């Protein structure tokens, strides 16, 4: 155990951990939204994120630019990527809902059936992006699908630069962009759910579907809305992933999805602010843990912390609620 390394640069590790956790938090929102309304784990959400990263890659490789883009170009590229990724991820999430989940909801199938369907959908998407598309489009789009199941790098859009230093803590521009955009996205979502008419519908259905129906809330629309919202958040996460991690491949979603889901549960699944807290908390735990022990124990530390937290707070840090506290 290396306490010195942790203590001497505690601030630095905290900044690192927060920027890592911000992406977890954005993806965690997708799990939480769906769970809050439908009480089901959308296991395929990790692939919603994966599709988003491919959309980002598509934009950044197909829009021509030379070397490192100028700040103006970078903003345009980021916005284009954001549009493409949110469309792709939101569309994928919606398609999953319509094609796979809706028939099950009509039959009122128990949650386990949804889970297995989600696993199947996940497998299908991973294989489509890992094998089918490379086989079909490998020649047309070698920058995206060069070789089956192959990691592909994304071009650098923003060069990493240290922005400011406080004491021993150096903060770079990427970290600021990631954390600030994640917070903005989350604030927007929070506002949307809590302050708008659509949000009220979502909360109503989450609290009591029957009453909501009596009050004239169109439940199908609400369900479509939450899938799209989760997808949009995953799309935003994909853009941040692009500037931070800088690569993608068909199986990129699995590990990230697992972490994001852990984050959602940590914070209290079904609870929007819980997803934020859980994501940031998980990012911190991972960086601290990796410094204290070794990076190879990162996941073990994350899961052990999850188990311990759930032992003392069985519904996560903030408890589960997408509108009100539930027993």
């Amino acid at each position, binding site marked *: 155990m290396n306490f010195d390394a942790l203590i001497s640069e505690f601030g630095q590790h905290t900044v690192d951990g927060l920027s890592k956790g911000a992406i977890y938090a954005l993806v965690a929102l997708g799990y939480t939204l769906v769970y809050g309304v439908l009480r089901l784990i959308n296991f395929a959400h990790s692939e919603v994120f994966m599709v988003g990263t491919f959309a980002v890659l598509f934009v950044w490789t197909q829009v021509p630019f030379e070397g490192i883009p100028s700040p103006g170009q970078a903003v345009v590229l980021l916005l284009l990527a954001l549009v493409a990724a949110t469309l792709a991820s939101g569309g994928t999430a919606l398609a999953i809902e319509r094609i796979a989940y809706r028939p099950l909801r009509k039959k009122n199938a128990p949650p386990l059936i949804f889970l297995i369907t989600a696993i199947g959908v996940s497998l299908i998407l991973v294989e489509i992006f890992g094998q089918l598309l490379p086989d079909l489009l490998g020649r047309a789009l070698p920058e995206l699908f060069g070789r089956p*199941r192959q990691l*592909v790098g994304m071009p650098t859009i923003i060069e990493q630069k240290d922005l400011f230093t406080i004491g021993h803590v150096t903060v770079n521009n990427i970290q600021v962009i990631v954390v600030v955009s994640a917070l903005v996205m989350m604030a927007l979502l929070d506002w949307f759910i809590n302050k708008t008419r659509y949000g009220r519908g979502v909360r109503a259905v989450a609290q009591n579907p029957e009453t909501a129906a009596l009050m004239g809330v169109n439940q199908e629309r609400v369900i479509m809305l939450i899938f799209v919202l989760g997808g949009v958040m995953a799309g935003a996460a994909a853009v941040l992933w692009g500037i931070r991690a800088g690569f993608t491949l068909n199986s990129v979603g699995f590990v990230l999805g697992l972490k994001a889901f852990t984050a959602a549960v940590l914070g209290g699944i079904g609870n929007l602010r819980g997803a934020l807290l859980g994501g940031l908390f998980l990012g911190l735990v991972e960086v601290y843990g990796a410094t204290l022990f070794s990076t*190879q124990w990162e996941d073990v530390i994350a899961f052990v912390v999850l188990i311990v937290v759930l032992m003392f707070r069985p519904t996560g840090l903030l408890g589960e609620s997408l509108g009100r506290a539930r027993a």
Partner: protein
Amino acid sequence: MGIAAAMLAAAGCQDAGSGDSNTAAAECGGKIAIFGAFSGDNAGLVIPSLNGAKLAIKQHNAANANCQIELKEFDTQGDPAQATPIANQVAGDQSFLGVIGGHFSGESDATMPVYEAAGLAMVSPSATRTDLTAKGNKSFFRVVGNDGTQAGAVSTYLKSQNAAKVFMIDDGSAYGAGITAELEKNLGAALAGKEKIQEKQAQFEATISKIKNAQADFVFYGGYTREAAPLVRQMRAAGVTAKFVGPDGLYDPAFPQGAQKGAEGAIITCPCLPASKAGGTFSADFEKEYGIAPGSYGAEGFDGATIYIDAFKAGKKTRADILAFVKAYDKQGVSKYIKFAENGDVDPSKVVIWSYQVKGITFEPLQELKLS
């Protein structure tokens, strides 16, 4: 009763399999198997070797109409649990006279006892774990240097560069951790720190801050592209200027592509000859056949197949004769001069290790690394 007897008789027939094709064989020729990860996540590293072997057989069959050799492919996805039933199948089918594989160390380790029990020779183009040949197995051979040899070459390189502070990272895989452990033995005081990451890791801030704290001038990474490409890229973005050195697991076009500009100038060692130095017309032929350069282990796959071709040409027709032939093999191959030591390793003095430098998305040969 009669039906049961018929069923069993039929079963017996099926079980004997195509064993009778042995007798049908002509004066020369026969059947060999090749197994490895031909599909799945790791296929990219193994396909060149398969293609190399196929090319050798194809060229031979085209030139020798009276001596046809059949090469059967068995896909294991690199999984020991899939490789073993395949080994049972190949070992039980008497028409197979030799095996090329395994391509990964795990599947080789798992299947070595099976092939040995069946008296089949195994020639591996790419299983490099050092202890594979330290188990007393009598039918396992490899036409590739082991991790110990390559680690020796890496340390020679690092010494020639006067590396004072080397930071070692590995991915905890049998390959990555193995080669890194071998290197550690040679580094001595030059080791500035080490770190193990997780497979499929994508974000490396903790690792990068350790590299920075160690003020390393060299970073050695043992592992594959999947983790190395994001690592080197994030490292460069964070302003780490230490030279990046990696073994042949990164001799893969996806590595510089995946790292974008991050891999520029990285040094990759590989027990493989540059195309221009490889014997004969192999590189040109390979490129003509498959449209790409041989890449990792293409030449070794070709050599593995060539050993069996030579055995058949020499009129060997049984597993035992072929095993003896492989053991005594002594000839120049396209990847290196091939002659096996008692334990099945290719003669260490014949192993050639080259260093390559990443330029753009290509690997430029730098120099041959002398083995200390």
